[in-house]
């Protein structure tokens, strides 16, 4: 059962991303949004700040990309050409939330569509984009309706269109809805999809900041990353850094969440660097009766498993990386003690195999092969050498061997499952059952 815990005394000061969310979960439209400082950041920036100053503030805040990679947003922006000769530029919001276990951007878009719209306008101003697209996964039907309505309201209010708020800057914003395929979340595949092509990734370099949509400089940012921008502009970089309350060198809050067989599931806005234990025990309420925590994925299917002993780690990009995984999207999946890890990994690899775009051979052929071997082991029909084969896959489908990060992402849960639960793989290979596992 889901219980979105609402904070008593939430304010824009402490919970910038979620304080405007209504208890009744009705979307916040323009008048209500403006009554709570909505569009104040945009007005401030367009009146008092030039694009370079907006960029500098976001860079100073050390906001790191919330889509999973943690790349500093301000640094990404600083790579885009500026000045009178820069030509047409695009801002694209990656709202293709499809990383298994992740449901944070849905919350923001369904409840606070204007927050993302304001964020898009303000960020587009910072990079002087003339058009913006919200690349939204097709299944988010409610979010699409609400974002379109918010855009219409913003347009009527003069926040979008010709000569925004009298600055002489023109900006149009569109919702582009997808038609499936996880690979669309990959930045360059997303651009191909936006252009009406198959979502195969593109070679980098050139990076999208130089040659992105229709060959023009393009910035792609995640929903949560962008949603932080108005707050940073309104309250400043120092305030943003302080939000982590010393729990992390990173700044800001983070939408954390948990799913699996925990007592409570949901998503909560907490200081970045909050421990996984606090998320799991305090907010998730621990495992349901009769179950215990076997292991967990910190932030999506493409992150390495961690163990209960890792729960005290701070959930930030660098700490989780040092522990051998990635924070990813920051939405934890709790694996209970009744799960067999071969079955869990088989499910994960079936997902990655099906969602491979087929562009490069290691991914297109290596993932189904991996699934085939896992299915055999799951049925107790594994052959000697299968574990070593799977380990070879984790090297052969690794970064640098494939065109994009899809297959390496698929290898993260596999390599860590073998590392921590090798016994369970051996159980599926009759001649390799360890002596300790035989009565």
């Amino acid at each position, binding site marked *: *059962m*889901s219980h*979105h815990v609402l904070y008593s005394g939430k304010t824009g000061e402490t919970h910038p991303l979620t304080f405007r969310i209504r208890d009744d979960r009705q979307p916040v439209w323009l008048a209500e949004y403006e009554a709570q400082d909505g569009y104040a950041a945009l007005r401030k920036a367009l009146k008092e700040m030039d694009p370079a100053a907006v960029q500098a503030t976001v860079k100073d805040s050390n906001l790191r990309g919330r889509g999973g990679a943690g790349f500093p947003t301000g640094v990404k922006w600083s790579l885009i050409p500026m000045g009178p000769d820069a030509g*047409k530029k695009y801002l694209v919001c990656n709202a293709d*939330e*499809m*990383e*298994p*276990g*992740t*449901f944070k*951007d*849905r919350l923001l878009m369904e409840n606070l569509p204007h927050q993302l719209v304001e964020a898009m306008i303000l960020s587009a101003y910072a990079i002087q984009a003339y058009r913006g697209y919200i690349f939204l*996964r*097709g*299944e*988010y*039907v409610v979010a699409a309706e609400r974002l379109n309505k918010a855009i219409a309201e913003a347009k009527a209010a003069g926040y979008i269109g010709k000569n925004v708020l009298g600055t002489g800057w023109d900006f149009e914003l*569109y919702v*582009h*809805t*997808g*038609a*499936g*395929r*996880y690979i669309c979340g990959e930045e360059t595949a997303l651009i191909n*999809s*936006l*252009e*009406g*092509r*198959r*979502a195969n990734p593109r070679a980098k370099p050139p990076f999208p900041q130089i040659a992105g*949509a*229709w060959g023009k400089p393009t910035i792609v940012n995640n929903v949560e990353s962008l949603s932080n921008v108005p707050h940073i502009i309104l309250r400043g970089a120092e305030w943003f850094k302080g939000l982590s309350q010393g729990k992390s060198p990173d700044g800001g809050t983070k939408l954390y*969440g*948990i*799913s*699996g*067989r925990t007592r409570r*599931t*949901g*998503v909560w806005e907490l200081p970045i660097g909050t421990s996984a234990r606090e998320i799991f025990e305090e907010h998730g309420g621990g495992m349901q009766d009769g179950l215990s925590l076997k292991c967990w*994925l910190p932030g999506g*299917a493409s992150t390495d498993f961690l163990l209960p002993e890792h729960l005290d780690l701070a959930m930030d990009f660098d700490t989780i990386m040092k522990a051998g995984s990635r924070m990813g999207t920051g*939405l934890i*999946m*709790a*694996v*209970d003690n009744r*799960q067999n890890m071969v079955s*869990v990994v088989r*499910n*994960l690899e*079936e*997902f990655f195999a*099906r*969602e491979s*775009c087929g562009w490069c051979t290691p991914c297109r052929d290596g993932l189904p092969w991996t699934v085939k071997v896992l299915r055999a082991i799951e049925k107790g029909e594994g052959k000697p050498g299968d574990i070593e084969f799977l380990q070879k896959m984790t090297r052969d489908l690794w970064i640098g061997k494939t065109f994009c990060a899809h297959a390496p992402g698929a290898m993260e849960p596999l390599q860590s499952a073998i590392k921590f639960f090798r016994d369970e793989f051996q159980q599926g290979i009759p001649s390799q059952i360890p002596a300790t596992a035989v009565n």
Partner: protein
Amino acid sequence: MTTGNCGCAGGQNTCGGNKGKDNFVLSDAERHDIEHAMEHYEDPRAASIDALKTVQASRGWVSDGAIDAIAAVLGIPASDVDGVATFYNRIYRKPVGRHVISVCDSIGCFLTGYEDVKSELQKQLGIEYGRTTADGRFTLLPICCLGNCDKGPALMIDDDTHGPVAPADVAKLLEQYK
């Protein structure tokens, strides 16, 4: 591009009112929607997915004739439109039932027991994944994570997301879709 019944030169379906492959003609509303979507982009090709979704919304699926008609409006080869149509799993190139059930089979729903829900659906509908019931009411498909993991097991029927769904809920849920 193949020649439609119109028989116009070069096989381009540019003759408007005449019928193409499988007697397909875009309705005025469909054509209007596609042309409207084209205005959002630098290049008409970018409206490919919007166009496919427009046709699918009114007809349930995308036929060969629809591919040709969309290609003609966008001014790109039909093979490109079909390349896009066959890449994206939410575009159906075969007829589907009146309602499409998409069962999330990703890890979040795996951990909360989607397989029991899937089995119950298959039992009640009498079909496997990828099939449509004999009465044309339901098509059953798997889908990747719906972003509804806090309410898993989750599934979509048409545009509605449901969750958590227990096997015991299945009969009542299906009743809502005639």
